[in-house]
């Protein structure tokens, strides 16, 4: 059984691509066969974060247009053998995506017995975002702890409940998860950011993960390594927890408090 998971948010720049890459890696590291697809046609960057940008020959739009076979466009990850990337086209615009074309690509991956298909949605609520969520079984809604991101997530949750294949056909709807990212405990404590509890209450959903704001994310994406693979990073541990929860494990949330500064750090200030 293949499960299609959309990573979406409404608002731009909240961490969808970072999350898609890390969750795909996390699932593949547990032996699952995973394909991660960049739906952000014209602004591709999943391939950069995955570190495979130089190996993109054919892309998602090429497959849809029949320029190549699906197998030719799937890029095998060099680190994890069960992980595959389908890059977005940099040159086309979003109209190149059609419902029928997307369905054919997903059907091809299902026939190829992938366990998970992760759809990295573009920002907004237009065609690309619509098609990224349309066939999903589950949704990871990425949200930053601030008002506009929460509002956009509420909007996206409304679309997930009404404008997806599962909701339209009454197949029990899309299973929704909330992932809070760029969480900064100090700013939450100062009242500059919303807390996990605030966000949970407003959106009425449980959280599958809380990823702290971390400089490791930027350095990892510059290096083309999904942050979940940076062994010593809190962000990596948080994504690893989220993957475990996605697979049904129950784990307490971590990184909700500011790390205690050690003796030397306090001694020498800073």
């Amino acid at each position, binding site marked *: 059984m293949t499960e299609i998971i959309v990573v979406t948010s409404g608002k731009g720049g909240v961490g969808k691509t970072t999350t898609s890459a890390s969750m795909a890696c996390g699932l593949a590291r547990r032996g699952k066969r995973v394909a991660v697809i960049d739906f952000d046609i014209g602004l591709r960057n999943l391939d950069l974060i995955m570190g495979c940008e130089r190996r993109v020959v054919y892309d998602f739009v090429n497959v849809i247009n029949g320029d190549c076979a699906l197998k030719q466009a799937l890029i095998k990850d060099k680190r994890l053998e069960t992980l595959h990337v389908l890059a977005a086209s940099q040159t086309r615009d979003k109209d190149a995506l*059609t419902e029928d074309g997307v369905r054919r690509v997903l059907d091809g991956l299902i026939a190829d017995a992938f366990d998970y298909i992760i759809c990295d949605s573009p920002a907004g609520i237009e065609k690309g975002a619509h098609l990224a969520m349309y066939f999903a079984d589950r949704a990871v809604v990425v949200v930053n702890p601030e008002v506009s991101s929460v509002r956009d997530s*509420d909007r996206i949750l409304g679309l997930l409940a009404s404008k997806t294949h599962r909701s339209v056909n009454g197949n029990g709807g899309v299973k929704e998860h909330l992932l809070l990212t760029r969480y900064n405990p100090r700013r939450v404590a100062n009242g500059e950011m919303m807390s996990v509890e605030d966000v949970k209450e407003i959106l009425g959903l449980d959280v599958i993960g809380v990823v702290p704001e971390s400089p490791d994310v930027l350095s990892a994406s510059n290096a083309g390594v999904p942050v979940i693979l940076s062994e010593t990073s809190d962000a990596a541990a948080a994504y690893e927890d989220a993957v475990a929860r996605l697979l049904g494990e129950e784990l307490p949330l971590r990184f909700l408090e500011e790390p205690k500064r050690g003796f030397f750090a306090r001694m020498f200030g800073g």
Partner: protein
Amino acid sequence: MTTQRAEAASGPAIDIRFGQVGLIQVLIWTTNPGAILDELTGRVATAPKFFQRTAVSIDLGPLGREPSVEEMQGVLDAVRRAGMCPVGLASGAAVAPALSRPLDLPLLPPFREFQPPAEVGARTRREEPRPEPQPEAGVLAQLHPQPVRSGQRVYARGRDLVVTATVGAGAELIADGCVHVYGALRGRAVAGARGETGARVFCQDFHAELVSIAGVFRVFETLPPDLAGKPVQAWLDGDALRFERLGA
């Protein structure tokens, strides 16, 4: 040519849907553009997010006479300058049809047919008509157990609406009867959507952006501290919308 044909083959060019949308009514007592502009700009300023670029219907009912096309052009100009977008004309009497074509605006059914106040000429609006029958006894409320998300609208025609989950900011609940929310109300609640002045709004956790009953509404740019987060009911007392903490 080929691209056109490909497009035509891929599906219909349009879809026609019948939908219910809430529309703001501007009832005019005068055709004096200056007076209209003054009042409108004042009201728009109280809730700019709500009124800017919003579609409105101009109701000629209170005027009690047939204005000329030129007069109406002045009215429309004033309404547009205040930042609203007139999309139709409404009038109980048979005056509007003659204006519809030259002004290029469709005729819309009046919301609550305007009836002149008791004292002739006085601008009191005490005696509101009750044109819509009460929902029939025994009609069950419409139950909505899922959250209503930003951008969604739920309409209960001819009955009460009961929502047992949260209503997000930017979501809209509309009922011809009462609106009940057993969760947080962060969006808009419109009760008595067809003019039932006895309709009420009840909610468990008040954070509403707007509450309207039988067309009388209040926008909350900031929430009164005595109501925020509290169980609240709202009802219409004559022309005034009243709010009260429940169980206080």
